[in-house]
């Protein structure tokens, strides 16, 4: 029988999960939502970030979130490099659709298989002071391993929002998504702006990966679970809307959590697929799309 406690716990867990999902989706919101680049390999970079956190944690005992932050510049450079290859090979020639997709799929594949070659298919996890603890708020248990990533995720979302709306480069990114010609007239190079944006997206993956492995253990194939989620969130939230990404992430988090509580965990992946299809069928522009 459904108890209020059970549902309340599920909803709260879902909201916390949503904060984390927002972090994972930020990169795609940036690259797909604003730059129209279908980087389906983003979840693979997230997993890469997770493994980086694992290695640092198991070898040096470093806090995973700290690792995530420290690796951000490296991931930024990787992202910038990947975009340059993508731009030179596909975007410039106008052949993005088929070839670009296959390119990113190939990257996803290489990262995933590479990781399983190096680290095998056992679950990897991290240890930190706050994992395993929880607090109790009015009968609802809040686990720190969910709370901390959620808070960091919210901070990342806020940070990205501020960057896009308040800084020169951030506004240039918004501009490039709407009118490249005008941007050139202002003296900014659209390719450079897009490189920065893409690099930021992958940098976000580094930190979100660390958050991911904080929440639960990972295997290399975990990335595939997130493709559906990340694109469901980006579409539902509306392409180009960071606030929309957050709202959609929380909706998905709660929906998955309830689904898992009521029907068992193996169906939670179907939730993102269902939400994606529903959004595409009913309102492809998403909740807050431009």
């Amino acid at each position, binding site marked *: 029988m459904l108890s209020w406690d059970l549902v309340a716990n599920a909803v709260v867990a879902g909201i916390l999960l949503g904060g984390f999902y927002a972090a994972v989706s930020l990169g795609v919101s940036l690259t797909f939502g604003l730059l129209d680049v*279908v980087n389906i390999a983003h979840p693979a970079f997230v997993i890469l970030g997770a493994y980086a956190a694992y290695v640092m944690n198991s070898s040096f005992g470093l806090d995973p979130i700290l690792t995530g932050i420290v690796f951000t510049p490296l991931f930024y450079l990787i992202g910038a490099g990947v975009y340059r290859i993508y731009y030179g090979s596909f975007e410039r020639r106008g052949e993005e659709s088929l070839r670009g*997709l296959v390119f990113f799929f*190939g990257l996803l594949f290489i990262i995933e298989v590479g990781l399983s070659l190096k680290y095998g298919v056992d679950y990897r996890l991290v240890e930190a002071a706050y994992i395993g603890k929880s607090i109790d708020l009015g009968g609802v248990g809040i686990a720190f391993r969910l709370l901390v990533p959620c808070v960091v995720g919210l901070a990342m979302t806020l940070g990205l929002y501020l960057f896009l709306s308040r800084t020169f480069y951030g506004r240039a990114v918004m501009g490039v998504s709407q009118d490249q010609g005008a941007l050139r007239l202002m003296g900014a190079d659209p390719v450079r702006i897009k490189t920065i944006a893409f690099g930021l997206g992958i940098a976000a993956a580094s930190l979100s990966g660390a958050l991911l492995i904080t929440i639960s253990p990972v295997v290399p194939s975990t990335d595939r679970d997130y493709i559906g989620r990340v*694109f469901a969130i980006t*579409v539902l939230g509306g392409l180009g809307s960071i606030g929309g990404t957050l709202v959609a992430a929380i909706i998905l988090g709660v929906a998955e959590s309830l689904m898992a509580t009521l029907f068992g965990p*193996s*169906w939670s*992946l179907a939730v993102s697929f269902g939400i*994606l299809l529903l959004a595409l*069928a009913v309102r492809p522009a998403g909740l807050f799309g431009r």
Partner: protein
Amino acid sequence: MRTARALIVAVAIIGLGLLLAGLRVNPYIYFAGYVVLQYVVIATAWNVLGGYAGYVNFGTPAFFALGAYTSIALIEAFHAPLPVLILSGGLVTALLGLGIGYLTLRLKGVFFSIATFALSVVVQTLIINWDYVGGAKGYTLIRPPAPVFGNWGVLLFTLMVVLAVVTVLVARTIERSWIGRGLAALRDNEEAAECMGVPTLRLKLFATTLSGFFLGVAGAPFPYYVTYVEPASTFDLNYAVNALAMPMIGGTTTWLGPVIGAVLLGTAQQVATVTISSELNLLIVGVVLVLFVVLAPEGLLGLVRRLRSR
């Protein structure tokens, strides 16, 4: 090659296959040959949608496995014979293709691709939870004595020869028909094609359905080939990446590309499995795929064409 010549070649190939079957060579040839020919079907089927129409399907494992699991369901329910299994497997996956297409093809091509990606995960979850076909534990098929040739290895090999020839013939016929020209137009520029009178939605749905059909056909005999079917290996990532890599390497604009890619890459992988781990194998395929997409996007056929025109 004009149609009459193509048909003669097709019959000749089937004849060769039968000859090989009759010779009773090393059984490993039949097993490896089956896999390579299976990939000819898969790559050609994928390319009808991916190469001709320009819509990328990342969910090949879902289609392939659904073909296999439809067979299992029908074997369990009716002890259905192979031909029925093949047709039914194909029909079920054709419907899946039509369904996914109907839901997502009105939107940008990207959403179709993402949907096919998520599809694999969802279908796999469904199968894992369906105990009738074995679920996560797997299904064991007790094969009756082989009705032809007296030997299942030889029979399945010959069957795959026929299926491969049929699939390639169908793809070739489509490619050279008005449908193929319409698909090429919508691949090159969908907006312009629509404005030039090409019914793009209808053609896209046709391509997805046909592609889905043959992917299921490739999977339908699989239970007989492996005798023990379980979700992990049936939904193997191999199928996803090979279905893309083989047409990309061979060349996506014509029927010959996937065949070349399947034969080359498929044979290479069969040879490699005995020497390197399957994961390293996959990694290499992934790297080759990315290299081709970036450096030689028109595949080997494209390279040959460019060398010839110099």
